[in-house]
């Protein structure tokens, strides 16, 4: 019997396959299907503090528009007791998810204010989340703000959230740090329980007919996996927090690679969106077959086997390899 179990932060998981935050995990029915098809943990969609603020402002604008302007129509929309502009809906989702499934439920949070991060994280914990993933998705456009200041802010909020909670805290990062390894170390120092590598940015595309910048969603591709493998392989064994890979995990072989790089879990979104909530079944079957075929007994056995520390050719992770690749490419096209 192959042992697929893994330990992600303080969560004992039956296998390393986790459904990452996406619209799929918004529905309790989907969560049930995901559990039935073998997924080991789910991450709920991110609660965006900025969105709560925006929604609050928008609902105020919508209700105020035209109000008290005309004697026959003092208002145009009914005045309800609440418009649920707070996190209540999200907290309710956590609650219902916990009731519906037995696997761990990880809440995801993207805050904008220090107070907001801590407050919503606490509320998520109280609502029953087994762990929290801090989604550090932000686009820093202020030219007067240094990278140091940004990193200080991230570390400080991780520290604050950590000290406010009992449950584990994972941090989902973008790859755009000048010194990723140093940043990982700082987050380790800030007491993060896991690092999730990497966030994918949904960038605007240009509509050149209408001269408009339009939001553009492209699902992940397996070709995005190497970047993640690369960094997990480098970080594995050098820092305390668990490591997770998200982005580019589409097949059982990808899961194997994640584990070999040193990740505790492999997270999927695009593959689930493309193939449906039953897809984990197939991945897990394929994973078991592959491991059987290659005579692996457990996930633990392969974890980190291809990391920077353990790889037979660690130079592949370094600059010299980059130059080698370039020159070989140049040779090929000649």
């Amino acid at each position: 019997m192959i042992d697929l179990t893994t330990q992600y932060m303080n969560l004992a998981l039956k296998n390393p396959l986790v459904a990452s935050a996406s619209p799929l995990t918004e529905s309790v029915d989907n969560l049930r299907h995901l559990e039935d098809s073998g997924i080991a943990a789910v991450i709920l969609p991110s609660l965006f503090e900025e969105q709560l603020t925006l929604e609050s402002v928008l609902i105020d604008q919508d209700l105020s528009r035209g109000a008290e302007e005309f004697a026959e129509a003092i208002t145009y929309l009914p005045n309800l007791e609440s418009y649920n502009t707070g996190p209540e809906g999200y907290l309710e989702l956590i609650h219902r998810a916990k009731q519906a499934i037995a696997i761990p439920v990880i809440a995801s949070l993207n805050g904008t204010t220090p107070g907001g991060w801590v407050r919503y994280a606490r509320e998520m914990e109280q609502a029953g989340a087994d762990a929290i993933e801090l989604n550090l998705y932000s686009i820093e456009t202020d030219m007067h703000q240094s990278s140091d200041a940004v990193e200080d802010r991230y570390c400080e909020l991780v520290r604050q959230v950590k000290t406010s909670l009992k449950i584990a805290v994972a941090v989902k990062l973008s790859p755009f740090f000048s010194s990723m390894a140093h940043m990982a170390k700082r987050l380790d120092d800030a007491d993060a329980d896991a690092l999730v590598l990497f966030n994918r940015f949904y960038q605007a595309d240009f509509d050149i007919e209408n001269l408009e910048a339009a939001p553009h969603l492209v699902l992940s591709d397996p070709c995005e996996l190497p970047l993640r493998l690369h960094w997990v392989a480098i970080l594995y064994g050098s820092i305390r927090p668990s490591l997770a890979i998200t982005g580019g995990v589409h097949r059982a072989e990808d899961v194997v690679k994640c584990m070999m790089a040193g990740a505790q879990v492999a997270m999927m979104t695009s593959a689930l969106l493309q193939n449906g909530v039953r897809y984990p079944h197939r991945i897990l079957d394929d994973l078991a077959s592959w491991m059987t075929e290659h005579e692996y007994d457990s996930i633990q056995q392969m974890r980190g086997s291809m990391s920077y520390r353990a790889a037979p050719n660690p130079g592949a992770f370094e600059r010299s390899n980059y130059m080698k690749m370039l020159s070989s490419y140049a040779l090929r096209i000649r």
Partner: protein
Amino acid sequence: MTKTMAIVDGNEAAASVAYRASEVVAIYPITPSSPMGELADQWMVEGRKNIWGTVPQVVEMQSESGAAGALHGALQAGALGTTFTASQGLLLMIPNMYKIAGELTPAVIHVAARSVATHALSIFGDHSDVMAARQTGFALLASCSVQEAHDLAAIAHASTLEARVPFLHFFDGFRTSHELNNLSQLSDDDLRAMINDQAVRHHRERALRPDRPVLRGTAQNPDVFFQAREACNAFYLACPAIVQDVMDRFATQTGRSYRLFDYAGAPDAERIMIVMGSAVGPVEETVEWLNTHGEKVGLLKVRLFRPFAVQEFIDALPRTTRAVAVLDRTKEPGSVGEPLYLDVVASLAEGGRNARVIGGRYGLSSKEFTPAMAKAVFDELQSATPRNHFTIGIRDDVTHTSLEYDPRFSTERPDTVRAIFYGLGSDGTVGANKNSIKIIGKQTGNYAQGYFVYDSKKAGSVTVSHLRFGPQPIRSSYLIDKANFIGCHQFPFLERMDVLSQAVPRASVLLNVPFTSAEVWNHLPREFQQQVIEKRLRVFVIDAYAVARDTEMGRRINTIMQTCFFAISGILPPADAIAAIKKAIEQTYGNRGEAVLKKNFDAVDQALAHLFEVKIPDRVTAAFDILPPVPPSASDFARNVLAEIVAGRGDALPVSALPPDGTFPTGTAKWEKRNIAQEIPIWDEQLCIQCGKCVLVCPHAVIRAKVYDSPLLANAPQTFKTTKPRWREFEDLRYTLQVSPEDCTGCALCVEICPAKSKSEARHKAINMAPQASLREPESKNWEFFLSIPEFDRSRLSHSQVKDVQLLEPLMEFSGACAGCGETPYIKLLTQLFGDRLLIANATGCSSIYGGNLPTTPYTTNASGCGPAWSNSLFEDNAEFGLGMRLAADQQTTYARYLVEKLADPIGGDLARAILEADQSKESGITAQRERVDELNRRMKAMDSNDTRDLLAVAGSLVRKSVWIVGGDGWAYDIGFGGLDHVLATGANVNLLVLDTEVYSNTGGQMSKATPRGAVAKFAMGGKRRVKKDLAMEAISYGNVYVARVAMGGGDTHTIKAFLEAEAYNGPSLIIAYSHCIAHGYDMVFGMNQQKAAVLSGYWPLMRYNPTLNPEGKNPFQLDSKAPSIPLKDYVYQEARYTILARTNPEAAAQLLCEAQKDVRRRWHLYENRASMAGDGTGSGKRLEDISQKPESVVAGEPEGGAK
């Protein structure tokens, strides 16, 4: 005893009781009673229970007659029921009221009394509606104040059960229904104590039930009807005593005592005034003042008007009464006197009392009634020959009925603080003042009153708030004219309004200014400065917009100004005031989220640091005066009459100034320059592709294009822009796109629709918004010059092309519609295409308000003096009204043709034949016919016979008329549907334009049968559960009706073609036009985008059904839009009416969205199948795909002219 105090308005006061004392509530919106129904619906959704522990059923009907019918049925089946209405709504209930009363059925109708439409519609308050129902057999109970609206509502509900006479409980529309005042609330226990359980059981026992069947509602014959009709007498005889008994029990329960006729004043008064309703307040104040000044006067308040209890009335009058003045708030032309007067005269005669009685009219349509007027009436009673049938409050210089009064007389108590605030609807002033009243009323121990006046515009509306508070209960049911505090929240008002005229000496003034306290003085008009100095006013200023900007409040300056008001007035210690304001903010906006609370709190915290007192110079330095309301170039009528109304001095206009039959000139909106836009569109002639889309979508006709000869530019202002036309045929001419800066509302629809973007800076378009202030003067000159350029020759244009339509003169301009309105572009288009021969029958609603509300009218004329002739009959009868217009036009044409034939010799055989045989199917033919008729008129003027005189009167009808029946979905889908259906069935050549906003927009967004599934609306707070009616398919079922569904933003050419085809079709036409609306809950700048999304999602398929294709064997049904290409949610979730439900009840929203998406698919398949049928209906016709490839290329009316 009841102790719970609240600050509420009269509507809530009455509805609170009605809801709790009812099981079934049938409702229909009508101003000013709509809030009662809305509250009942809200309470039902919130699960509030009545006093029997169940949640009442609140059901919206299709009309007030429907509501009365449903109420009647509910009552017959044993429920306790109520309804709320006013004005025309009450009139529609009258047939059922006779039935309900005739069957001795306990029920209560609560009425916010309002004028009945006569020479004009008015939404304001008087008793003409309730007086029209006084003969129905309902008891009529009148409340004078907010507290009484609450108390007498309870007394009505209790009395009706015991008396078995149904009750109409009324209070004055707006004055009481919308006034905020202190209320001692009745608890459920109070109500339970008042309602007689045995009477309730008896009512239920009388219910129609199959297990104990009876039959009610028989038809009776001459033998017994009369006797049976008299059989109810005993109930009416007993009713007054029952009501008094209930009133007495009420007094025991609550400590508040009422009588059928309540007397106040000197016990030995000689002069008595008799009134009902809110006028009681000012009369009572006057009585107290006069009696303390040595006079002996009294007031008799009539509470139970029907059944009129003669003996109780006689007993209530002091024995010393010598002279009586009866005031009626209604008018019955041709009667001996008004109803209350007649009852008093008859009662005194019957009671054997000898007193001189005079009657008079006052306060029609919320005309102010003040102590000064009441004093004039008492003074009149003192004269040797007091005038009877007088009027008070107006100057009647025609039949000389009016009494003079001294407006300086005042009974205002010195310990009452009086504050007036001028604001814009959009700046939140009224909302903040409502909160201030609640704060003062609850936290200072003061009594408080708030009343709010709005102008008749929906965009840039000026609001005036009147706040009183003091240690004594406030009964002053009239506007403040002596204010201790004046707040002007909009600096631009000062250039056109005298806001200080009501300021008392040493009053405080608070201004929101874009200057520092040191700079501001020189920006104030002469009259303002003069009054500040003469009255020794203290002036405080704040740049509230700067504070709002810094605290992310946008244009909402309400809480900032509110904080300053509390600081200046010193009503509460500063810290307490700020805490109270924040608490009020939390209560008002708490449901909108923390971010909103935070920015409001920030604004409050920032306000005082920016408040400064102005050091007042000792002399007037201003070099400018308040601007005249209309320019000197305006017509005499505009300057003498309309200008006075614009300036807020309409009250002073004498009777002779006003047309006696309600007829007004058109084309007057152009005189009322409102300057409400912060930013206006500015044209970049280099980028413009002259597509005409901006002109087409402009809701206010403020952006226009002309093509003209270049020599006309000789006297052009320096900044006037011009370029080469992008029409091959007109290349040697010039083109200009011009904006009217002072009429623009700044909605930016034009900029949003503009497709031309700069190649080097994508955000820069061919038109861009820019601040109005600096552009106002030069662009006004440019606009004036632009207007002086002659209109382009219509015959050279293709009327079916958007590009050419921009050059057709609009004959509807500068309406008071909302900025970005989705309706007016359609009407404007209508006037561009057919304006000079257009008759419009307009249903009551938004379009009748922005189309016909004084002071000015947007419909206008072309250079020949021709333009739309417009009228509004009612809400419910518009289709029939328009049919009548068609019949009249046709009949006059027939008669004119008969006369032309008869007079062929004298007028000339060739001309007569040409007139009679004219082909008027196209505009060119109509123009030629118009010229022939002009010639006919010229020739006939030289003749003098009865026939020529007759023909002169009707000769105009020889030119083809276009009759359009215009209204909203409330009319077309609901209240007027029966008529609409019938008119379609007549086959008459009328065109019906339904401006479908999918709610009752004018009354504030109540659900109609056009409301889509899943949308939240008033009366559908939980999201509408059922599908929207497909009016198009219903009309198509006749086969001979031209039908089109259009959406300008989804297909502008399609829209134009549909209008042309509908008009060309010689039979009934129905155009259902998607109209985005402020009630949909999003920024109207995106209105056309949403229209497009509605079409792309398949929610609003564009289609036409043209019966003229039938004889050609073609399928008349044409589906003109492509198959759905975006999911419904991408369209609907841009609008708060849908997202609100997704927030508050995501499961229901998801379910309804799913069903709504199925609706879209189902309808699409239906349309697709219908479009694919052959002309004979056997199928195998043209497939949808063929059409959908070319949505705009379908054949419409043959293009005219050669421009294309």
